[in-house]
């Protein structure tokens, strides 16, 4: 089997996205080829092996965070890609968009504190058996920054239990570190098939020791590994 040298992982740019270049830079640092894709594009690049929806304030967060972005042309392509088993990662606003689009369970509400939080948080890796956490090590504690006003993830108790039993809760805030009031301390959640993942922390801001932590590279590096494998299968 030939290994594709640089899997193509586009980063989608919505009006109001502001972490797209950080995500692009982080992915390229980790060995991916990462073109930016405009929200009006109706198709993803031909060799796309995974897609990243970056952080920001798409469409000004009007109505509800992520509610408007889900109707953009590129999201139809992203939904189709995900339905075919394609790897999709949503970071912060990207996570909000994926929940609004119905690609991930739950909804993101204003932080319990009503304050915008911007700081490093301690996270616990609940499963390393996913395309997004394979490099992380189960039970490991990561330090990755959050910066959001609407990160209070909500599902009802029954669904939380079900998601937990299915191993879909991949990332939790460490005890006492929950920055937003999310139920079950959930920081990141997978879809049922494990090919779509959303998280509030920003791994793309934690890939360089100069900025305090390189733990984000474990998450994005896992995605690059998985994208490389899926690209090799496609070839």
């Amino acid at each position, binding site marked *: 089997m030939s290994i594709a040298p640089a899997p193509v992982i586009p980063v989608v740019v919505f009006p109001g996205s502001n972490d797209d270049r950080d995500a692009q830079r982080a992915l390229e640092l980790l060995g991916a080829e990462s073109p930016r894709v405009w929200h009006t594009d109706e198709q993803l690049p031909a060799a796309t092996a995974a897609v990243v929806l970056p952080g920001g304030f798409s469409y000004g967060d009007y*109505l*509800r965070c992520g*509610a408007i972005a889900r*109707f953009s042309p590129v999201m139809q392509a992203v939904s189709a890609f995900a339905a075919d088993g394609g790897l999709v990662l949503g970071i912060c606003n990207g996570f909000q968009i994926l929940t*609004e689009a119905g690609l991930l369970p*739950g*909804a993101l*509400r*204003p*932080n*319990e*504190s*009503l304050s915008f939080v911007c700081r490093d948080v301690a996270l616990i890796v609940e499963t390393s058996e996913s395309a997004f956490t394979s490099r992380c090590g189960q039970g490991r504690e990561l330090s990755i920054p959050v910066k959001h006003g609407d990160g*209070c993830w*909500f*599902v*009802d108790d029954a669904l939380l239990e079900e998601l937990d039993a299915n191993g879909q809760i991949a990332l939790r805030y460490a005890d006492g570190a929950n920055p937003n*009031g999310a139920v079950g301390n959930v920081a990141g959640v997978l879809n049922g098939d494990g090919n779509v993942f959303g998280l509030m922390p920003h791994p793309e801001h934690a890939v360089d020791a100069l900025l305090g932590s390189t733990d984000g590279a474990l998450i994005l590096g896992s995605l690059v590994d998985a994208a490389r494998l899926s690209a090799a299968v496609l070839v």
Partner: protein
Amino acid sequence: MRATVLVRPKPGILDPQGQAVEGSLRHLGFDVAETRVGRLVDVELATEDRAEALAELERMCEQLLTNPLIESYTIELGAA
């Protein structure tokens, strides 16, 4: 036809905004048991048919105006 859609956080959903308003009202001396904050959307529809308007507004609520997981809605139709 004019209509107003009222969107509310569902019961049991944490509403920190409502809690903050409640605290401020108490601070002002009002005897308030609970405050919840929602959203109001005024819509001017092309149709004058009430049944048609209602059906359309319900579709709007389901597709965009509300997130059914966390919000409920009521529709108030204007006088024909």
